């Protein structure tokens, strides 16, 4: 199995990968689905921004203000290119995916007819959504009187679309779904969902938080109306996210937050709003973070997103093989690497994931345990939580091996008293 990436070289870009934990254990970071590590290139871009150009954007004509504005807007160009947006003004910077999804839910709900949500309208999500794509829709449907329904999950961790025509109906105003599940790893069949949503004239919102970092993402090819993702999972800093939207739709939607930057003209009595994308960017934006995200996008593009995806596919296939050979281990999610991202959830016998994670940590292996902000999936599979190992462009097969050895150690640790180390 050979990777299209020179992973050893890639790893050198990530300072944190040199960490040791618990005195002498080299860090095995298998938690990239929660947040990715950052390459030096991104950190340098942020530091340079603050050391050379720091200024507030847009409203200044002095040198630093122009430089900062050029850097900030340059980052927008980079992100627009990265996702193949038709127009740079379709890229709205938010603080994370969650803000992007809340923005989407609220402005759709508030919009004038025929867009807005009213009593009797329906919003469709799926049972495998991250809480950030469940709770905002619960909140706005409750406030507007619309109803929320959802697609279930099959036993092998795929969306159950068998009754798609009964779930998405003529009353459906919005369909919002995750492109790649952060807990199951499933890559969902966007085309089929988009097609049905189009038939009934519903808006399509896509949570691409686990897609943008890992796969080539082309928002035009995707055919959705709004797409959300988050910087910190794709080599970028915390504090920055993106909402992409079709230009004509964004133009029709009302603003989310009010304040500086997003206005055209303010009087005490009323205000008019700025053009896209500023209409949706109230207040001083996360400037340095946008610059960092721009650098992250450059970094990923230089490696090539197709190569990143291929590398992860290779690691995922290897990990699925080795993990499923561990006695007592049950994968929650698709059991093959087909249409699958690099997050693998599993349970180990009747050991609680907390205990699994704790013992792995002692070995230097960082996995995430819990419901991964997707509690309905845990309920669906009858488990209180899972252990999740997730891989990224710097992950190696040696790290998979370390995980498998670690799991054997975990079993011994909690085994019959005699079996303890």
């Amino acid at each position, binding site marked *: 199995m050979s990777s299209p990436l020179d992973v050893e070289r890639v790893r050198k870009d990530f300072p944190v990968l040199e960490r040791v934990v618990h005195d002498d254990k080299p860090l095995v970071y298998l938690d990239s689905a929660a947040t990715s590590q950052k390459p030096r290139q991104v950190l340098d871009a942020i530091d340079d921004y603050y050391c050379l150009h720091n200024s507030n954007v847009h409203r200044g004509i002095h040198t630093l203000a122009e430089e900062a504005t050029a850097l900030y807007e340059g980052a927008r160009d980079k992100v627009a290119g990265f996702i193949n947006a038709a127009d740079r003004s379709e890229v709205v910077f938010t603080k994370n995916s969650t803000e992007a999804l809340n923005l989407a839910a609220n402005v759709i709900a508030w919009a004038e007819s025929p867009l807005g949500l009213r009593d009797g309208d329906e919003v469709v999500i799926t049972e495998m959504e991250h809480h950030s794509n469940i709770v905002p829709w619960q909140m706005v449907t409750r406030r507007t009187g619309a109803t929320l329904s959802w697609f279930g999950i099959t036993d092998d961790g795929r969306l159950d679309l068998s009754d798609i025509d009964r779930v998405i109906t003529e009353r459906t105003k919005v369909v919002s779904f995750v492109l790649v599940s952060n807990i199951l790893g499933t890559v969902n069949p966007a085309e089929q969902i988009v097609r049905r949503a189009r038939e009934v004239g519903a808006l399509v919102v896509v949570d691409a938080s686990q897609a943008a970092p890992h796969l080539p993402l082309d928002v035009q090819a995707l055919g959705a109306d709004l797409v959300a993702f988050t910087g910190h999972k794709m080599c970028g800093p915390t504090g920055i996210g993106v909402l992409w939207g079709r230009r004509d739709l964004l133009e029709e939607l009302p603003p989310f937050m009010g304040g500086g930057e997003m206005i055209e003209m303010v009087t005490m009595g009323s205000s008019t709003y700025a053009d896209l994308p500023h209409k949706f960017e109230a207040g001083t934006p996360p400037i340095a973070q946008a610059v960092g995200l721009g650098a992250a996008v450059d970094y990923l593009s230089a490696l090539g997103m197709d190569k990143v995806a291929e590398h992860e596919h290779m690691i995922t296939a290897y990990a699925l093989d080795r993990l499923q050979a561990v006695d007592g281990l049950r994968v929650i999610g698709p059991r093959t690497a087909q249409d699958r991202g690099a997050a693998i959830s599993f349970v180990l016998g009747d050991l609680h*994931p*907390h205990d699994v994670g*704790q013992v792995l940590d*002692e070995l230097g292996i960082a996995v995430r345990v819990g419901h991964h902000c997707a509690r309905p999936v845990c309920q669906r599979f009858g488990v209180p*939580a899972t252990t999740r190992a997730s891989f990224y462009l710097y992950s190696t097969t040696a790290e998979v091996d370390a995980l498998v050895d670690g799991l054997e150690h975990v079993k011994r*640790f909690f085994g019959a008293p005699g079996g303890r180390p």
Partner: protein
Amino acid sequence: MKLESMYQEIILDHYRRPHHKGLREPFDAEVHHVNPTCGDEVTLRVRLADGCSENPTVQDVSYDSLGCSISMASVSVMTDLVVGKSLDEATRAYDAFLTLMRTKGDSASVMDEVEDVLEDAVAFEGVSKYPARIKCALLGWMAWKDATARAVTTKEMA
């Protein structure tokens, strides 16, 4: 190995063979507590002795729980410490356990104070070093405290 300071043999024993487990009748109050960060859950019932004593006996604590070794063992150890005790004594154990959990692994200064009251529960000392696990250890205790407060109110209303 540092980890063994958390996973003491006593804890693993309670985890494998929990005491007082199962939901029983009669009870005065039942609560359901969860640890939202990790999905640990406990349903817990409290039965206080009848009569209008200021300081009734904790007649029974029964529970059903889902969770990690620490939360399961902790509720088991807790029941040993409170069932059959007076409410005052039980509350003293609760306070002592909270004190222990707040030491961040530096329990030497409080050991004298809590040791006698906590018996087996001093084994959780090591857990206090792991901030993310303290909530697990406290889950059952918090549920007991809550259920007991409700039981007392119910009795007073009756």
